[in-house]
């Protein structure tokens, strides 16, 4: 390791001007990175981790500006560098892999064009043929085996994982000394995440590239980086070797983060470890062990028998090909328990939820809820059933009407089902807000003024308004930061024991399943590949597919306290 660090950031300050004065997003960050090292910056959204990364290559969004400090990269000061100097550094010396593979490739240009452009701009190759060959080489190395055939294709013809490989290829195309990867896999399925990160590790190790990995996932950070920096509200609260921070966190925020990380919580359970709940406000281990002790054996609330869903996909001309999204799925959910439906995107898990909610028609098979076959119900009975069965969706930004205030949002199901007088409805809203631990003062505010966690609480309150027996939670905590996620999971567990709710919990995140579910069904390509109690699935999975999913949980390989 050389004497001089490759990157030295000293007292970095970044501000965003707003109408109410400048907001300081990064406040006095110091960090050092040596050649060949991997450093992870961890924190929740708004902690300034991405802003720090963007500041290095001067690509801050909007009117954001570096207002102080220094970024010394390989002997060159980047704060205040000219546009030409920065163009020379970007791509050539510092590669950048962005967060969302869906939005980071220009949809109107072919993938090959976008790779070749990077190669040409950084002088890696010149001449039509050489550039093309270099592009194929870059994409092959990034894991696209059939790169030569796919150069002419457009981003929308690639899957999310494939696009992320393209972006990694672009980031590494000019053999930079430093690669900044901003949440490179958070939009992807766990198994895809693992292959991509393994590949990234391999490529950077081969060339001795330094890596800054930005992530919200503590388990992932610890698994992939030697050095860890924890950011909170624009400041670094803790930094050092990752294992050390994980096993012995010093700062209270880091302690909370470690306790709330579901991937680590599940790991702790299997390792037979317990953490005293005094360490944090929200300890998922405590929630999970409490769940395990409550073994409720009730009657069956929901029963699916051989349920299938076939869509016809429009093909050329007037022909259409059938596509089986759900293939004879059967399971029972007992009253007051939680069934988790797990699978990667495209596995058909959300289609099952839609059919249960009556939002999609069943092609064959039957769904029986409380002894009633759903397909035999008339419109009026279906309406009544919907009152007893409520959904909570993934995106708390998209599922609330931005033009309706919170009180009206929560009261809407009551109005639709003609429940109570105006005064009674207001009283019920007050009661519901209390149940989800939100202050009454929030009722006149609008969704845009709330945080993600508050919005999801509102969505849960709305779902509970009609006192349903069944709540379908479709990726209800997937879009939330770990700490908020832990709070919502705890809230859901409390509400369940209080109100005897039956949950169908749909998720791609196995780590969350461990703490919330009694039983698990693992879905793949429309079929249930494995089903059983949560502990059985986690301790002795019989199917390779389930085993792969379990192994892919970031942090799963870390032995805490070992």
């Amino acid at each position, binding site marked *: 390791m050389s004497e001089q660090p490759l990157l030295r950031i000293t007292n970095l300050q970044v501000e965003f001007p707003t109408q109410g004065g400048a907001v300081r997003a990064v406040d006095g960050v110091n960090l050092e990175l040596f050649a060949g090292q991997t450093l992870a910056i961890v924190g929740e959204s708004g902690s300034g981790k991405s802003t720090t990364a963007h500041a290095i*290559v001067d*690509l801050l*969004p*909007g009117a954001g500006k570096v207002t102080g400090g220094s970024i010394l990269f390989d002997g060159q000061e980047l704060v205040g560098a000219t*546009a030409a100097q920065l*163009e*020379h*550094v*970007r*791509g*050539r010396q510092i*590669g*950048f892999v*962005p*967060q*969302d593979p869906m*939005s*980071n*490739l*220009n*949809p*109107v*240009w*072919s993938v090959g064009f976008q790779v070749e*452009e*990077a190669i040409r*701009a*950084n002088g890696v190759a010149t001449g039509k043929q050489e550039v093309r060959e270099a592009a194929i080489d870059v994409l092959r190395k990034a894991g696209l085996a059939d790169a030569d055939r796919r150069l002419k294709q*457009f981003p*929308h013809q690639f899957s999310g994982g494939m696009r992320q490989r393209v*972006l990694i290829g*672009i*980031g590494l*195309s*000019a053999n930079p000394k430093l690669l900044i990867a901003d949440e490179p896999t958070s939009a992807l399925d766990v198994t895809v995440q693992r292959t991509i990160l393994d590949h990234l590790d391999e490529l950077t190790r081969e060339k001795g590239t330094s890596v800054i990995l930005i992530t919200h996932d503590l388990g992932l950070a610890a698994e992939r980086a030697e050095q860890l920096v924890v950011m909170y509200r624009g400041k670094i609260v803790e930094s050092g070797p990752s294992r050390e921070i994980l096993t012995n966190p010093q700062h209270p925020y880091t302690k909370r983060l470690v306790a709330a990380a579901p991937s680590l919580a599940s790991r702790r359970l299997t390792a037979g470890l317990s953490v005293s709940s005094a360490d944090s406000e929200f300890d998922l281990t405590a929630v999970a062990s409490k769940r395990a002790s409550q073994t409720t054996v009730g009657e069956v609330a929901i029963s699916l028998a051989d349920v299938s869903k076939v869509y016809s996909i429009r*093909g*050329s*001309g007037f022909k259409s090909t059938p596509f089986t999204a759900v293939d004879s799925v059967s399971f029972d959910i007992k009253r007051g328990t939680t069934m988790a439906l797990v699978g990667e995107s495209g596995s058909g898990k959300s289609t099952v939820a839609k059919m249960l909610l009556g939002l999609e028609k069943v092609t064959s098979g039957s769904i029986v809820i409380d002894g009633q076959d759903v397909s035999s119900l008339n419109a009026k009975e279906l309406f009544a059933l919907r009152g007893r069965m409520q959904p909570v969706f993934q995106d708390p930004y998209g599922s609330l009407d931005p033009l309706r205030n919170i009180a009206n949002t929560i009261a809407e199901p009551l109005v639709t089902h003609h429940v109570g007088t105006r005064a009674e409805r207001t009283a019920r809203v007050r009661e519901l807000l209390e149940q989800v631990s939100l202050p009454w003062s929030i009722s006149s505010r609008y969704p845009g003024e709330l945080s993600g966690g508050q919005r999801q609480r509102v969505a849960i309150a709305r779902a509970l308004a009609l006192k349903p027996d069944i709540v379908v939670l479709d990726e209800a905590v997937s879009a939330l930061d770990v700490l908020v996620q832990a709070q919502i999971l705890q809230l859901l567990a409390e509400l369940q024991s209080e109100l005897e709710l039956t949950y169908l919990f749909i998720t791609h995140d196995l780590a969350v399943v461990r703490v919330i579910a009694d039983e698990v069904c693992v879905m793949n390509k429309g079929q249930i590949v494995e089903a059983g109690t949560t502990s059985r699935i986690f301790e002795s999975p019989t199917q390779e597919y389930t085993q792969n999913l379990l192994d892919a949980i970031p942090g799963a390989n870390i032995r805490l306290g070992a």
Partner: protein
Amino acid sequence: MFGYILRRVLQAIPVFLGTTLLIYFMVFAMPGDPIVALFGDKGVNPAVADQLRHQYHLDQPFIVQYLIYIGGLFVGDFGTSFSGQPVANILAQTFPVTIRLAMLSLLFEMIVGIGIGLVSGLRKGKWFDNSALVMSLIFISLPIFVIAFVFQFFFAIKLGWARPTVSGAANWGELILPAIVLATVSIAYIIRLTRASVIDTADQDFVRTAYSKGLSRGRVVRVHILRNSLIPVVTFLAVDFGVLLVGATVTEGIFNVPGVGRTLYQAIIRGEGPTVVSFVTVMVLIYLVVNLLTDLLYAALDPRIRYGK
């Protein structure tokens, strides 16, 4: 792709029949007897009137008149105007003038509108952007005849840069001033549309990724911002071209341009069924073709859109 075009052409048939029937019916239902009106202040000669009615099939029931007309179309006969001129000749005289005017106008719209819109969008909130927005608002608010008179007075009469009215030949040079007038309102919309689209695109993640590759600002603007921003603008331009092609009654009137707008207006006043319907028929065809071309252009600009296979 071929299948898609064929389907669109087949779809055009009912549209064509429906619109012509509707227009024919509306001309037929207009109050007043066009034949009586032809005699003006002089007394009506019943024998001549009956002769004329027979000649123009006005003594037949409505649907028969329509079918005779449509039948004529298929052998290239657009009918005859009351002044005895074949309608085909009138079409051949007026449409080239209007097409020249429309093309000039579209050219101004593209160069000025997209140019100002792009610079505005890239310099959001700066003085250039603000003045462009104010100017565009002024042009949107002013009725076109006001703009036409002001331009005519200022540029033609005061400065003498152009002729105030257009001659019968209506050549390219003479049409520049009316074309600018015709373009002003659309330019204002295009500036706003391009500006909004550029601002939107410049904020996209892929633009940041493009910078992170080490591309220069000029290349990012040309390759990644401009092309994506032009997709909605092109749609607007294509529709606008269709509007321009069917004539601009007011502007053509003020500058005395012998184009489609003015001629059609006069034909409607005189209740000349075949002339009106023939013009509208050609306009419908132009609209259908322009619409089809727009959709194809749209697919060429945005690879995510693919019609059929």
